[in-house]
C-alpha cells in the first residue's frame, strides 16, 4: 500500500507533467500539418522540425523543471498537512518510505522521458503526414532519461531539506536556470558536454548533420552510468538526511 500512497501523492504532478509534454508533442505534429515545411525553409527535414520543437531549445529546461517537481513530496511536505506522525507510526522504516517514493518517481521520469518516443513516431503519420524514426525517438528518450533521473534526485533532495510547498517548487524552477548560467559561464565545465544538460539532452554532441539533426554517433553509455550513480547518490543523501530528521 505504500506504492498506492506514493502514487496518490505524486499523481497530480505526474499527470500535469504528462499533459504539458503531450501538448508539446501533439501541437508540434498538429502545426506540422499546415506549417511544415516553413516557407523560408522548404528543404527542412521533419527530423529537424521535431528536434527544434521537442528535443532542442528551452524544452530541455522545461523537462528538467517538470521532473524536479516530480521529485518533490515526502515526509517534510507532510508536516504542514499534519500527517507525518501517522506515516512515521506505521511499521515501516524511513528508508523504505523513501525507497518506494523514489522508485515511483523514477518510473514516472522514465515514462515522461519516453513519452515523445511513444507519441511522435506513432502519431506523426496521422497528424503531420510525416514519418519519424522510432530508434531516433528512443535515443533521445535515453538522453532525456539520463539527465531526468539526476534532476529528479535534486528535486528529491530539496524536498528532504525544505518543508514549504512554495520553497521546493521555487527551487525546482530556479535551480536549472542557475545551473545553466553557471555552465555557460565556466569554460572549464564546458569541456565536459555531459555537464551541460541542455546540450546533452538535445543530443548535439552525438549529431553530425546540423541539417537532419539525427543522432548518428554512439551514445555515451559510460556517462549514462555516471549520471545514474549521481542520481542514486542524491537519493541516498536524501535518505540519510531524512533518517536524522525530527518530525
Amino acid at each position, binding site marked *: 500500500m505504500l506504492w498506492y*500512497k506514493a502514487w496518490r*501523492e505524486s499523481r497530480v504532478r505526474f499527470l500535469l507533467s504528462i499533459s504539458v509534454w503531450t501538448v508539446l508533442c501533439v501541437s508540434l505534429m498538429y502545426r506540422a500539418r499546415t506549417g511544415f515545411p516553413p516557407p523560408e525553409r522548404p528543404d527542412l527535414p521533419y527530423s529537424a522540425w521535431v528536434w527544434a520543437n521537442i528535443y532542442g531549445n528551452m524544452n530541455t529546461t522545461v523537462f528538467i523543471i517538470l521532473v524536479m517537481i516530480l521529485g518533490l513530496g515526502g515526509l517534510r511536505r507532510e508536516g504542514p498537512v499534519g500527517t507525518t506522525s501517522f506515516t512515521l507510526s506505521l*511499521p515501516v522504516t*524511513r528508508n523504505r518510505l523513501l525507497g518506494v517514493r523514489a522508485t515511483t518517481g523514477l518510473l514516472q521520469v522514465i515514462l515522461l522521458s519516453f513519452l515523445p518516443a511513444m507519441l511522435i513516431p506513432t502519431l506523426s503519420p496521422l497528424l503531420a503526414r510525416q514519418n519519424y524514426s522510432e530508434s531516433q525517438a528512443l535515443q533521445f528518450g535515453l538522453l532525456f532519461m539520463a539527465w531526468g533521473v539526476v534532476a529528479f534526485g535534486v528535486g528529491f533532495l530539496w524536498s528532504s531539506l525544505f518543508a514549504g510547498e512554495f520553497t521546493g517548487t521555487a527551487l525546482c524552477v530556479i535551480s536549472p536556470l542557475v545551473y545553466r548560467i553557471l555552465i555557460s559561464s565556466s569554460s572549464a565545465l564546458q569541456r565536459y558536454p555531459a555537464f551541460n544538460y541542455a546540450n546533452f539532452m538535445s543530443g548535439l554532441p552525438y549529431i553530425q548533420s546540423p541539417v537532419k539533426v539525427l543522432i548518428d554517433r554512439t551514445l555515451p553509455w559510460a556517462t549514462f552510468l555516471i549520471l545514474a550513480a549521481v542520481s542514486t547518490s542524491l537519493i541516498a543523501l536524501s535518505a540519510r538526511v531524512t533518517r536524522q530528521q525530527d518530525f
Partner: protein
Amino acid sequence: MMGSYVIETQDLTKRYRNFEAVRSLNLRVGAGRITGFLGRNGAGKSSTIKMLLGISRPSSGNGTLLGRSIDNAAQCCESRRHVAYVAEDKQTYGYMTVAQMIAFTRSFYADWNVDMERRLLKQFALPLHRKVRVLSKGMRTKLALLLALARRSRLLILDEPSEGLDPVSIEELLQALVAAAAEGTAVFFSSHQIAEVERVADHVCIIDRGCLVADASLDQIRQDYRRITFGFATEPPRVDFAGEGIGSVRTDGRQVTVMATRNADTIIERGQRLGAASIDTNPVSLRELFLDIVKEESRDALV
C-alpha cells in the same frame, strides 16, 4: 523488572536548540493497565510519545518500547508493528476516502480485527466513501481512533484522544479504552482532561516542564495521599516539614497545609507534637494533586 514494562525510559531528554522539552525522564509504564499521562500544554507529553515511536530522536538518554530500543530504527520499526497510535493532530491522508484509509492502514498490521473495524464503523457512523479532507474535526478524530482501536495491539498510545469529540463520543472512547485493556492491551494516553484520566486510568504519570513529577496508581492516590491542614493558635513554628511522604508544604497565615503522599499518620503526629490546635485531613483527588504539583512547580520556576 525487565519485561513487565511496555514503556521504559532512562534519562530520556529532548532538546530543541536552547529549550529542553523533556528532561531526564525516567518513565515506566506497566503491561496490562491503563496509564494516564498528565501534563499541561507544552509539558513534554507529545515530545515523549514521539521519541518513543521513533518520530523524533532523543537528544540523550534511551528507552524501550515493548522491550525494543527506541534509538534503533529497525527495532523501533518492529515494535511499531504491535503499537497502535493516535497522534495529537489526528490527521490522516486527506486525499483518501475513509474506506481507502482503512484498507491502507489494515495492510500494515497482522493483528487487524475486522469485526472490531465493522463495529467501530457502525458506532462512529463514519461515511465510508467520503474523502478524509472533507470530514469534520470530530469525524477525523473518530477515524484516527478506529484505525488504532480496530487492532489487537499490545500497546495503545493515544495523544490527547478526546480532543474534538462530543461528550457521547468521549464516553464511547473511554469505554473502548477500558475494553481494550480488559483484552490485555496496555493503554498509555496523554491528556489534560483530569476527569477522563481519573475515570479510566489505573495509574497516572504527571509530567511538568519536561520532568516526571508524579508516578502513582490511582488506588495509591486514593488510599495514601492526604491533604492535612494544621491550624495553629499563634504563628506556626518554623519547622522543616519536608521529608519522607511529604509532597508539598504551604503556609498561609496560621495554617500549614501539607500534601502527604504516604505516612499521613506520622505527619499528623508530628503536627500534634508541634502544638497544632486543629488538624483537618482530607483525601486528595487527582485534580487536586495535579494542580498542587503543577502550581508548586510553577512557583519553583518563578523563584
